[in-house]
């Protein structure tokens, strides 16, 4: 049986971000892309499930950057059996969650998985998270903020994190959709030599898909948060800074 993992590339928010002259998108030329970190956890959780059940993991992604191959080859190197890339006239486009979900639904239906996993959220999902959106369009049960799962006798047990350390364990009928916050264990590491080997031996299946309607989220204007409330920046050598911090703590009776 099949478990689908949906993977997306997103702007690396650790890097400095710039806004395009249009004011409604990032300056995509200045962006470096990484796999959405939660999608990496979704892949890990899928691989753990599949190792226990013998299911086949299929990694699926929409190539909005022209750089998705690396992520999919890495997924194959980690243990996914197949990788499918959707291409179309959306390269360089900020794809809304709804538009992405509509592109993904026919592919997911064709694969007939018993489970779809993806990251709980993404840095750019302005119109909401992908997992519940897919669940609504597919008509399948779902859970987000998942931190563990188990397939037992055709049913799925899911641990969902609430707040303050509380969790909720749900039993869902299959097929189902999960938004993964964190896999049961840290995503596995795969050496680059293994990825290179996979690049020589495996192929990524490409599907050219038709798009229609608005693809990008409707945005009036992007801006940086106001500088107000910015911290007073302490400068100097490490020891000067340390002196200053100790002074600050003493002044407040904290030392």
């Amino acid at each position, binding site marked *: 049986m099949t478990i689908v993992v949906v993977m997306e590339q997103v702007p690396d928010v650790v890097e400095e971000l710039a806004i395009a002259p249009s004011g409604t998108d*990032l300056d995509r030329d200045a962006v470096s892309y990484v796999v959405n970190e939660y999608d990496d956890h979704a892949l890990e959780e899928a691989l753990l499930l599949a190792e226990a059940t013998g299911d086949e993991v299929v990694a699926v992604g929409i190539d909005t950057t022209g750089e998705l191959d690396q992520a999919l080859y890495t997924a194959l190197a980690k243990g996914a059996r197949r990788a499918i890339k959707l291409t179309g006239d959306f390269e360089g486009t900020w794809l809304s969650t709804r538009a992405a979900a509509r592109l993904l639904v026919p592919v997911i239906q064709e694969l007939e998985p018993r489970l779809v996993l993806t990251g709980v959220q993404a840095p750019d999902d302005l119109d*909401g998270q992908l997992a519940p959106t897919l669940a609504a369009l597919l008509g399948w049960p779902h859970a987000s903020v998942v931190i563990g799962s188990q397939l037992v006798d055709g049913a799925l047990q899911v641990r969902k994190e*609430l707040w303050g350390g509380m969790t909720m364990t749900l039993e869902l*009928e299959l097929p189902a959709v999960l938004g993964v916050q964190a896999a049961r264990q840290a995503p596995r590491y795969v050496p680059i030599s293994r990825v290179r080997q996979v690049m020589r031996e495996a192929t990524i299946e490409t599907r050219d898909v038709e798009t229609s309607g608005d693809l990008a989220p409707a945005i009036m*204007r*992007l801006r940086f*948060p106001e500088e107000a409330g910015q911290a007073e*920046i302490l400068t100097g050598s490490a*020891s000067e800074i340390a002196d200053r911090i100790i002074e600050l703590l003493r002044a407040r009776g904290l030392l």
Partner: protein
Amino acid sequence: MAQQIAVLVEHLEGQPTDVTFELLGLARRIANTNGAPVEALLFGQGVRHLAETIPADRVVLVEDPRLRYLTPEATAVTLATLLRADPPRLALIPNTSLGMDVAAWVAAALDWPLIAYCEGLETRDGQLVATAQLFGGKILADVLIDDRPTVISALAGAFAADAMQPEPPGTIERRDPPSELAALHTRSVVLERPEAADVDITRAEKIVAVGRGIESKDNLELAEQLAQALGAVLAASRPLVDAGWLPRSRQVGKSGLKVKPKLYFALGISGAPEHLEGMKDAELIIAVNKDPKAPIFSVADYGVVADLFEVAEALLERLEG
């Protein structure tokens, strides 16, 4: 009469969460500008007593054993049924663990627009404009809300609770549970509360918190030493807890614990919105991070743009020397 502003009441077994009152406050402020009624949507089992404390013009109450916990499917199906029958101007849903399961599902099922991670909502030139926090809190997006009913998934802690004192609602209307609840694909639900932790970080006066910048588990020792020297307890942002370096009881943020210490000393924490939600009310925040644009500096009182190890070692030298 303008279309109502609907608010999903988030609660756990009848205990409402803070964000519910924040969204009711927001709804009231919007309502004051356009004369719309505020409608609270309360689902649960045995929660009539809660309905009587909700400050709204109307509380719509749906009670059913399958709604005892606000589980994803049951809540989404019930909410979509009510919203479809009587579309509001806005449906306000918290962007929490429970709300995230519901907002995007309902918006997709009804084919309504959704604005997630909302941290601001105001009327400009007679039009509603929402502001959403994107890209790890580094970018804000202003979004015009058009004439369609719109779902807003709002960040906890972003809006003021207007009336802190619960006041009785105008009316309470009980509705039948939707027939779809009979065909749920969610079988059982078990709630687990955390076991007593070794340290209660919510009671700590001083916290040293570490994030991804700490780089490796071995480096935690330095942070632990610094915490001890400062008389503080060690806490962490989510990635370190996910990696298993520290227990969940030490996690600060949206899905972890909310803390309000006298000192929050953040080492190598960039300050994702989910983390800031859990610590921004600390009395004194000092943050050390390599990235001068790290969002943590927007809530910190003092910031240091430097290598955290150099700063931590220099501090330790003085405190222990």
